[in-house]
């Protein structure tokens, strides 16, 4: 492999990575993608008293640690190619125990490699553990950001009594649920809780996240990268189709989306939060409510940025590549 290249650890078919790669090519910069189809072999990890040396074999390309200039961690992971292990003679419980053991062994190696890669110039976030959305929400509160009143409950009664007092929405706690079959696509977005729901009588429900419904003037999508905020306001209020979640896109008349400048006070709080959670880059979802208050909804270390990049002409991909090569 050539020297000074960018290692991209990513998922397949990602628009953001695609557009970053275009700029890498444009500047004739070398890069190598590790996606889920590319299994990695370890040539060596040398730890001795003089130096540390790592060499991986990625689909026939031998890559040494010090050839890597920068790393993009984008929803991918390093997976190792493994030999088949003879298990026929083992009893079933033993196989399970052995699998667990081997997995932990591998994990330790991957974590160590990530640890070394993290010392390079980084874009994205090396996800070893998925950041917990509830912890993030509580941290946002701690730095002084306003958050929506939130309730998690598995009691039908408690949710109903809340519903009597105000309009509520529900959304997944951690991730967006995606299910594709040949016939249909199910995606969980944010939705109102219908009053009809109360007709159904169950005592115990699956623990669900309920939030007060905030009347918004507009939504903000904020991409933070290299000490800069790229913010976009989305006006979805006038359009019934997108009142709760603008991802339920209205194709005929796209919502108005325009660049936005955050007040310094909000920038300060967001920076505080970024320091606490230690992200290189991330995207925030916020709401400006009818009282002109800024309400924090969530932060995502690997949020897509293509929409604001194109709509507001931020050229985020270009800036990322300039950063990675600097």
């Amino acid at each position, binding site marked *: 492999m050539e020297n000074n290249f960018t290692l991209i650890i990513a998922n397949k078919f990602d628009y953001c990575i695609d*557009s970053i790669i*275009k*700029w890498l*090519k*444009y500047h004739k910069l070398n890069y190598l993608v590790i996606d889920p189809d590319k299994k990695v072999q370890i040539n060596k990890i040398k730890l001795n008293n003089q130096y540390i040396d790592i060499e991986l074999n990625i689909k026939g390309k031998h890559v040494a640690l010090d050839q890597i200039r920068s790393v993009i961690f984008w929803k991918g992971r390093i997976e190792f190619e493994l030999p088949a292990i003879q298990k026929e003679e083992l009893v079933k419980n033993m196989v399970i125990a052995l699998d667990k053991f081997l997995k932990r062994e591998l994990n330790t190696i991957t974590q160590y490699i990530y640890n070394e890669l993290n010392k390079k110039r980084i874009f994205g976030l090396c996800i070893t553990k998925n950041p917990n959305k509830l912890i993030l929400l509580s941290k946002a509160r701690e730095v002084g950001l306003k958050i929506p009143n939130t309730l998690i409950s598995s009691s039908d009664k408690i949710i109903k009594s809340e519903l009597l007092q105000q309009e509520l929405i529900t959304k997944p706690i951690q991730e967006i649920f995606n299910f594709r079959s040949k016939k249909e696509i199910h995606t969980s977005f944010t939705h109102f809780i219908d009053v009809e729901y109360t007709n159904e009588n169950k005592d115990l429900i699956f623990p669900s996240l309920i939030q007060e419904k905030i009347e918004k003037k507009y939504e903000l999508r904020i991409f933070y990268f290299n000490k800069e905020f790229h913010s976009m*306001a989305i*006006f979805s209020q*006038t359009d019934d189709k997108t009142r709760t979640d603008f991802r339920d896109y209205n194709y005929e*008349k*796209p919502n*108005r*989306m*325009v*660049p*936005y*400048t*955050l*007040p310094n006070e909000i920038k300060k709080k967001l920076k505080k939060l970024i320091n606490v959670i230690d992200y290189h880059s991330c995207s925030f979802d916020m709401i*400006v409510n009818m009282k*002109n208050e800024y309400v924090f909804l969530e932060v995502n270390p690997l949020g897509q940025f293509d929409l604001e990049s*194109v*709509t*507001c*002409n*931020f*050229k985020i*991909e*270009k800036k990322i590549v300039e950063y990675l090569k600097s």
Partner: protein
Amino acid sequence: MVYKLFACCIPVKGYRRSIIVDTQRMNYFIIPNGLYEILINNECYSPEKIKKELEFKYNKVINEYFEFLLNNDLIFSCAIEQINCFPKLSLKWDAPHHIINAIIDVNEKSQHDYNSIFNQLSNLLCKHIEIRFFNKVTLSFISEILLYSDYKSFQSIDIILPYSIDLSIVELNKVLDKYSRLTNIVIFNSPDITEIKNEGEDKGQVLFIKNKIVDCTSCGEINPSSFTMNLDFFCEVQTFNSCLNRKISIDVTGQIKNCPSMAQSFGNIKNTSLENVVNNKEFKCFRNIKKDDIEVCKDCEYRYICSDCRVYVRGHKDVFSQPAKCKYNPYIAKWEGEKDYVSIEQKGS
């Protein structure tokens, strides 16, 4: 409470009238210059204040203006403390392609090595190619050429060819099916106009048109149907030429040019590499002729959504003249065919 223009709706002033380009919904609205002045001279708008400034003489007109702006979703009401939160769009332009557009012309005498041409274009990260056949051509020949376009940088490919009785729709669709990046097949000299749109999102379309095309001189038409209202184009043409920026072409004889209709060649594809030509200073100079530099166009309200032509130009053939095939006179704001139209030659600025 005051109003602000959405940043994606950009007013452009012409000699007689102006337009607001809605770069997001890809539309434009003709407005009087009076409204343009109001929009451009203020950060935000309060109808009451404007009425007062005009000594309440134009209340009805001002009401109409705001009704129009609101109905078309061009302005929004903004809290005073948030006026400064809504900046203008940056109009800086760049793209990760050394070549964005390539035209390859073909007639019965052409002997292009398509494999080599496509490879070279792909190395220049070319985004779009257009192959124009001026002679009768079989679909199997087109298919053969397109085989070389697989695994290249091209995001879209347009094919233009003359009508012939043995072109079958079924076969045309088969070609479209096979090459996902084939966007348009345009068939000219056709007896009627037909459009065969395909259901599939990523599939191209076939277009039969009556236009008579003999060679590259048919290029350079300017008309509203080819106006482009997106943000990328709007930004690009602030600084660069609306037709020739990052364009390259190979004419029927293999000459490498800015566009096939140009006289100047930068070498033949047989012995000159496209990359060398792209880096040639002289080759690049047309890129920088923007609409604001071009006579007549610089006074036209359509200048940032209009295409351009630097070959077929009006009058004394200065490289900064208005495209000859433009039928619009911005000094009277009329298209040819409209009542009281007179040409630029009869009535310029």
